[in-house]
């Protein structure tokens, strides 16, 4: 095992080494910064030095094996968020939906705010569950050492998107993230796919829990005596968004057949502890023909066979490879790299780590024109700004960061369509959100985001402060690493001459007290900082 690992590290090192030699002839730190921008939520002060000391390939391999990284400090920070570790049943009991009477009063506005707080306190409402999830995501993204794990959790939460606002989902979400997404984020895709298919969150979000064989007649409940039937929602998205991709070669006929195979996959007691159950009474036991193959085990195995078949399909390999390369390399993924990553998927039976290794050691990933080619998504922008300043949020601050990210267009767990959030520049760059980014940069640097303690001054020494041009160089070095464009540098230098940025001191020792906060805000709001 150790020998295998050592060999692997050697391979990574060799591959990285030869690339870095070309890319870093001028500035090795810039290349490390580029890698950190992609593999993490952005470098914190001192990160580049730490990676250098450890060696890039050793650091990368550690990120690929998050279980080897001590992250107890983060876990302690999460201890103030009790809903994260609760089961679905515990959550349903502790944060029940309001009773009919309270609901009616709420919608009619019959209750005074005070009455509402007393009868229906904020910390007993189901909304708390989603709030704590958002808080935890932001806390982890900013402070976790297992950065690649967090990046991949975000990736898979989007890939297998479910929407917190739909029905029972909010009670299901902590369990979904804890038991389906997190343990498999760097694991094997087929395992992740199977776990997603059986979880109440997915069964509910894409309505499969309600789908039955076409001739099933309900024997009880409010719909007693009514004929139920197929619901195609999950079957379609399973192929379009989770596995094959929309051009993966399936037809409407396949969608219907897959829907038939998943009849009976449902939720037992959805409003209590909500567990997966296979109900043979609602299952369609007839043979199904999917992608030209006949499936006729009859029962739960039909769905399982389809998941296996889809996970093994070459379209799935290409679709997933394309999405990963888009995340880590470029909006328009280089086809040759996608092909290599897809082959790796096929060779390893869907090993996510193995695919990432191909990406991280590829010339495409390290090519000079890849650096800065991606526009940061709103969460990436918000988190990277906090990390770049070396700021630390408490739980309240993390919630404020989640709200800031929502204002820039990416509310966590709030993407309604099954596609999740897009990963392309055009989706995120427009005047409204650009202003929101600048406003966040200002609020953060000036210490106006409550719960986030920021000390921009710590990035520059006291002595430097009297030399504005040195202050600027320090900020540029620690916030945007690579060289800023000539225009950006010129604009920032010009700002140094304004009295708002550089206040003249009252004594005779020349300019003092550079407004580092405002200057930092300008850097964080600059075009360079919007890229990674």
């Amino acid at each position, binding site marked *: 095992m150790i020998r295998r690992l050592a060999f692997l590290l050697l391979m990574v090192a060799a591959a990285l080494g030869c690339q870095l030699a070309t890319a870093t002839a001028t500035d090795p730190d810039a290349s490390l910064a580029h890698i950190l921008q992609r593999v993490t939520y952005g470098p914190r002060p001192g990160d580049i030095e730490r990676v250098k000391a450890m060696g890039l390939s050793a650091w990368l391999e550690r990120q690929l094996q998050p279980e080897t990284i001590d992250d107890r400090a983060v876990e302690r920070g999460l201890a103030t968020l009790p809903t994260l570790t609760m089961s679905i049943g515990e959550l349903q009991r502790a944060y029940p939906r309001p009773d009919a009477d309270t609901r009616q009063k709420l919608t009619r506005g019959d209750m005074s705010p005070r009455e509402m707080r007393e009868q229906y306190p904020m910390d007993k409402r189901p909304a708390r569950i989603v709030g704590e999830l958002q808080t935890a995501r932001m806390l982890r993204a900013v402070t976790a050492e297992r950065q690649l794990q967090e990046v991949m959790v975000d990736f898979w939460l989007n890939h297998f998107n479910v929407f917190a606002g739909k029905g029972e989902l909010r009670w299901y979400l902590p369990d979904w993230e804890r038991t389906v997404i997190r343990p498999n984020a760097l694991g094997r895709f087929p395992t992740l796919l199977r776990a997603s298919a059986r979880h109440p969150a997915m069964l509910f979000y894409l309505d499969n829990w309600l789908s039955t064989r076409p001739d099933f007649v309900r024997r009880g409940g409010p719909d007693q005596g009514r004929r139920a039937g197929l*619901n195609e929602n999950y079957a379609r998205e399973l192929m379009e968004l989770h596995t094959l991709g929309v051009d993966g070669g399936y037809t409407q006929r396949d969608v219907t057949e897959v829907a038939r195979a998943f009849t009976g996959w449902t939720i037992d007691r959805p409003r209590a502890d909500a567990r997966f159950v296979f109900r043979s009474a609602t299952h369609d036991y007839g043979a199904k023909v999917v992608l030209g193959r006949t499936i006729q085990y009859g029962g739960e195995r039909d769905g399982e066979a389809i998941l296996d078949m889809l996970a093994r399909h070459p379209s799935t390999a290409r679709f997933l490879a394309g999405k990963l390369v888009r995340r880590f390399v470029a909006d328009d993924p280089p086809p040759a790299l996608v092909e290599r990553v897809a082959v790796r998927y096929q060779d390893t039976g869907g090993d996510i780590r193995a695919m990432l290794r191909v990406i991280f050691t590829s010339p495409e990933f390290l090519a000079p024109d890849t650096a800065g080619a991606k526009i940061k998504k709103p969460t990436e922008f918000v988190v990277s700004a906090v990390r770049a300043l070396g700021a630390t949020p408490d739980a309240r601050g993390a919630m404020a960061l989640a709200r800031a990210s929502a204002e820039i267009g990416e509310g966590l767990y709030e993407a309604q*369509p099954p596609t999740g959030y897009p990963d392309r520049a055009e989706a995120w760059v*427009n005047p409204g959100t650009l202003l929101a980014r600048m*406003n966040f940069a200002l609020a953060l640097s000036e210490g106006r985001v409550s719960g986030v303690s920021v000390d921009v001054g710590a990035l520059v020494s006291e002595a430097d402060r009297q030399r504005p041009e040195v202050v600027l160089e320090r900020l540029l070095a620690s916030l945007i690493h690579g060289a800023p464009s000539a225009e950006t540098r010129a604009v920032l230098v010009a700002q140094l001459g304004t009295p708002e940025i550089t206040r003249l001191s009252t004594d005779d020792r020349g300019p003092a007290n550079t407004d580092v906060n405002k200057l930092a805000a300008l850097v964080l709001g600059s*075009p360079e900082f919007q890229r990674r």
Partner: protein
Amino acid sequence: MMLTRRALLKSGACALAAVAAPPRFLVRAAQGAERRGKVLVAIFQRGAVDGLSMVAPHGDPAYARSRSSIALAPPRRGDTATALDLDGYFALHPSLAPLKPLWESKTLAVVHACGSPDTTRSHFDAQDYMESGTPGVKSTPDGWLGRAAAALPTSSASPFRSVALTSRLPRSLRGDAGALAMSSLDRFDVRGAPSGVARRGFESLYADGVQDLLHGTGRETFEAVKLLKSAGAARLSPANGADYPRGRFGEALRQIAQLVRADVGLQIAFAEVEGWDTHVGQGAEQGQLSNRLREFGAALAAFAQDLGDRIADVVVLTMSEFGRTVAENGNRGTDHGHATAMLALGGAIRGGHVYGRWPGLAPEQRYEGRDLAVTTDFRTLFNEIATRHLALPATAPLFPGWSPAPRPLGLLA
């Protein structure tokens, strides 16, 4: 609150002092302010609205038969809790009652059995095809409204010429002509006092440098901030007693009305409204879909009321990626289907009429045996409205690879 040429030129002079490039747009906007421009408002109902409930074909005998629990009951004169009859064959969903007066005044028209020739039942693809305007072709870089903007005379270019009241720019508006996406007029500025230095700083950061998406967007942003401020759009409260429903969609329409009334040069606006994917428990007169339609109808009616006489210059066009199955599914809901109903509203619309050929709902009349067939290509509708209302040149390629039907629907007078 008309913006005078003088005020604009004045603010133009201020802007001139601040940035190096002459703000030609301000001068153009000042010229344009003298005549009130035409405005097209596109509304996307994302998630595939059930056109058969929005505008129910109660005259089709297969309608009630196919939907045992979710069909609307036939209209009854004087009963506003049931479907509201339009022409003896079609009826408006009772939750759309606020739109009925607009039908009576012939300001509102319906185009039924409208949709895409592409057969995909994927939300994502179908929206993409409808917004790009090229069904079946994914490589189209821009959107149909982006191309419409490009076909408008350049003399009328304002940073507010194409605006989406959304947090992300929709596919429809993408294109070289540029468009603006904003979720709130009030928050459209660099905030935090004193913001002057920060705003100027940010503005200069995006003023020069490479011609890329970020810099271009940054320059647009600050032009727009200045114009919006000088026009005072965000301070206009709803006129004529218009009462917008709470929620994002009502807010979006309220702000589009502010932009129209402030004469900032708006010609193409876009808003979206979600929650139409009613696979489960769709409801009939009451229920899930009814609630969504109530908000939808109330917001549209408030918009028309808010604009008052200005509705003469405005056309609202609603669209959705596809319709839903004719028959209800096993969960008292409907699955992804094909054609749906679209609405056109405005002073220039020849309203009070349901346009399009009705294909029928009997199983043998359906598309693939399950869906309402498309008898009006969405491009016929979009093209007619955009080219006629915005007076685009007939040669404007709004829908590449497609030629308009020889006979228009006749929606515009």
